[in-house]
């Protein structure tokens, strides 16, 4: 299968010191749904911005649909679709007018434009509100309009930058259902960024986990879960637990034990059968337990496994956030001078 996206040593440093993306390399095959998963500020949007010629890289190269992103940006923009995380539709125009404008900008043939616009409005359940100003649209309608604008020209590669941010679960599910159907119908390659684990798990053929600007793991969702090593039993002692980690390691079928902040994570093929043995081991050592829980392999576990910390969707400001903040401050200062 040919490669739709090739990134080699892609890096982006803001203000000469803040590394938002740190020499990442990956390949996305044609027709694949490839997800970039990571917390806020991990470098997802910066990577996507470089792949879509919105942002120049500090180092590295990228090829999308056979075009060098940094030397053929104009040709590239004609072949890719881009859905931003924020609403970019013109609020003073109607939904139809926004699509007509996008059709003209992306060189959709004039004779095909009315049919294509009508098809997308219908396909994305926007026909009834097509002639209303976008400023009157709900959040879900705006997201669907963004998607329609992004695919008006039937792009070969579609980039989705956290497209369901701010939507309720129902809206998110509806959005992904449409993307899945469109992808099946057209066979286009989809590159998406998300910080929702369930979205990455449900949508992507392959996932790259990005943290602090580096890819820490890649694979299919099931490959990544397998690498966690089956179920995870989390044991929280009520006090000091000398010897408990060693005792747990000695139990049959345990593939690994890690301790973080006094909590022990035990990896094993079957959590249900391990729990009574683990409780008995703690009891025999005289260690009281505050709680025991079983977690099936999930991307939360994968994230924890590869980054060494729990996944939080509302993590605080990171390198990119700080860089963007600094850039805006400097722009403001320049504006004042």
């Amino acid at each position, binding site marked *: 299968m040919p490669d739709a996206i090739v990134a080699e040593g892609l890096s982006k440093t803001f203000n000469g010191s803040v590394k938002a993306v740190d020499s990442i390399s990956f390949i996305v095959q044609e027709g694949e749904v490839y997800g970039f998963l990571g917390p806020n500020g991990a470098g997802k949007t910066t990577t996507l911005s470089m792949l879509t010629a919105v942002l120049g890289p500090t180092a590295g190269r990228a090829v999308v649909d056979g075009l060098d992103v940094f030397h053929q940006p104009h040709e590239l923009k004609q072949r890719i679709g881009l859905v931003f995380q924020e609403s970019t539709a013109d609020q003073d*125009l109607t939904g139809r007018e926004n699509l*007509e404008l*996008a059709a003209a900008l992306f060189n959709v043939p004039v004779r095909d434009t009315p049919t294509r616009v009508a098809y997308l409005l219908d396909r994305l359940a926007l026909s009834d509100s097509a002639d209303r100003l976008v400023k009157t649209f709900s959040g879900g309608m705006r997201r669907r309009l963004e998607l329609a604008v992004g695919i008006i020209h039937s792009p070969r590669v579609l980039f989705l930058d956290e497209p369901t941010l701010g939507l309720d679960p129902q809206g998110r599910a509806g959005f992904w259902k449409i993307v899945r159907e469109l992808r099946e119908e057209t066979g286009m390659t989809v590159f998406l960024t998300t910080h929702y684990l369930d979205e990455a798990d449900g949508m992507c053929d392959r996932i790259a986990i990005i943290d602090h600007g580096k890819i820490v793991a890649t694979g299919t969702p099931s490959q990544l879960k397998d690498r966690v090593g089956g179920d995870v039993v989390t044991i929280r002692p009520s006090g000091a637990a000398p010897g408990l980690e060693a005792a747990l390691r000695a139990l049959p079928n345990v593939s690994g034990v890690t301790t973080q902040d006094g909590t022990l994570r035990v990896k094993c093929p079957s959590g249900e059968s391990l729990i009574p043995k683990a409780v008995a081991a703690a009891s025999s050592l005289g260690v009281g337990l505050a709680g025991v829980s079983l977690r099936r392999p999930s991307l939360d576990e994968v994230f924890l496994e590869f980054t060494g910390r729990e996944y939080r969707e509302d993590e605080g400001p990171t390198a990119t956030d700080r860089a963007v903040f600094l850039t805006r401050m400097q722009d403001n200062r320049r504006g004042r001078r």
Partner: protein
Amino acid sequence: MSAVRRWAALTRRELLKLARNPAAIATSLLLPILYLLLFGQGFNFSGLLKASPFLNPTEQALLLQQDLLGAPDYFSYFSAGMVGFVAVTATLFVGANVIFDKLFGTLKRTAASPATATDIFGARLVAGSLQPVGLAFLVLGLALLLGHVGLSGLHITASVSVLGALEVVLSILLLSVMFASLFLSLGFTIEVPQTYFAVVNAINLPVLLTSAALYPWGSMPVWLQSIASYNPVTLAVWVLRINFFGDTYYKYAAWVYLLGLLAWAIAMFTIATLLTRRALAPKR
């Protein structure tokens, strides 16, 4: 062909937005209307001069014509200036819209499409330059109307030829292109609306006060006349006044001043194109 289509589509967008925002048009007209209705009515110099006991009516008329470069009264002189100045006040929204499009993400969307910086700038320039021409003629119509309702109004004393009318339209258009380019380049460069409006205010008033839009030419200090002679607003209103009141008091024909305006418009257009390209290029 596709570039023309992109231009047309982006220009249509600008015009649709304009048509759906009558408040912006009203605000553009507010300043010149207030000047015509309040300032112009109170400062009609012809009345003041006629009250002088030391001059006979012929001398008064001659003095007035010298001061006002052939205009029959101050209101007529000044209303031609206001017609020119509306081009400045109306174009400032063109730049402000760029900043709001940045804030609302619309510009990001357009920049991510195959549209070039020239398409994006050009469409805004076309829409932004056509609007002031329309507004200028509204101000002109109002100034003429005021003279027919018992107030001071614009009295055109020369017979305006077809060529003269074209010169008038062209002068307003060139002035609009020049200021639309200036404000667009500010809009693409500045990120914060407050900063933009502060800069615009710092430009507008000095431009107005160092031009011959308000100031009677004969009463202007020589040093200020030297500055005002190169002010694009002056050049535009001179073209209007030559066509409205005759060219007796002017050094050159209207087309010479039009050439000066053209030079201003080309210079500002070139600077704005370069700044826009830089602003829309992928960030390094």
